[in-house]
């Protein structure tokens, strides 16, 4: 399902209280974290002349890049189950790296390929 994984909370909210319940449960899960993110974001920006600011920025990026690699490994392990899905994943990787197609078209293409293969 598209969107952040936590949208499934919405389905439970819907089950419990209809469309209104879905919306309320959706808001309840996002708002507190969003407020915190907003406050931390502005605080961080106001510290841009602090001498540790650049150190923190530059020091965290290799770790973040490593986390992105690890996350993609877990995604691949969860979705690549056979030669066909491996081919789809490899094609998507190559297409994005070569900048030949936009990401939305690539996932849609994958979806269509999946539908043709498995329906």
């Amino acid at each position, binding site marked *: *399902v*598209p*969107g*952040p994984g*936590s*949208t499934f909370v*919405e*389905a439970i909210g*819907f089950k419990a209280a209809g469309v209104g319940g*879905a919306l309320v449960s959706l808001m309840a899960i*996002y708002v507190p*974290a*969003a407020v915190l*993110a907003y406050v*931390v*974001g*502005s605080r*961080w920006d106001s510290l841009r*002349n602090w*001498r*540790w600011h650049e*150190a*923190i920025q*530059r*020091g*965290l*990026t*290799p*770790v973040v*890049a*490593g*986390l*992105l*690699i690890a*996350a*993609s490994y877990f*995604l*691949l392990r969860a*979705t690549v189950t056979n030669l066909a*899905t*491996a081919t789809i*994943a*490899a*094609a*998507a*990787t190559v297409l994005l790296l070569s900048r030949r197609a936009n*990401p*939305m078209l690539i*996932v*849609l*293409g*994958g*979806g*269509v390929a*999946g*539908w*043709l*293969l*498995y*329906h």
Partner: protein
Amino acid sequence: LSDEVTSAPTPGLAALIRAFGLIGLTSFGGATMTYFFQEIVGRRHYLSHEEMMDQLAISELLPGANPADLAVLVGRRLGGLRGAIAALTAMILPGAILMLVLGVIYFHGGQLSLITPFFKGLGPAAAGLALANALQASGREVRSLRSVWLLPVTVAVVLLLRPATLIVIVVLGAVGVFLFRPRGTPSAPTESSGSPS
């Protein structure tokens, strides 16, 4: 209220809604970060790659849904409070509506099996995109020889030990920050000490 932040071309609210709506619409199968990089950095140049990595690091440190935190952070950078609200709403709404529709069908005894083959192909495609995006981000890290070794170490630690993301970024991030620690001129008064360059 801080509105003196942005550097590059500042998008209007409508442009923000469009960009984040597209991210929300296309964030299938967990490759959300890919769309952030491709849309905000790559296609529209709203933020530099480094700025996006910075915001991503903050979002990893924050509790709550990661992409939602990132939407708030990036939306705020680009459009203040209104930008943050617009970005978050535009990003979660398309998926939320689809989820609601699927939920209605499901709880009314409908069949979702018709669309599952679609998601079977969509999943690996999204994973492939995530890999490509991670490779692009990693390619830039190679430029900094002082810290690039942290990247494979992070990957190895995550794959072998499976710690919580927060622990990884706090512990290994601290090592990274130490590598770039400010030197000379001990304990200057905060801020006003003008930084060169």
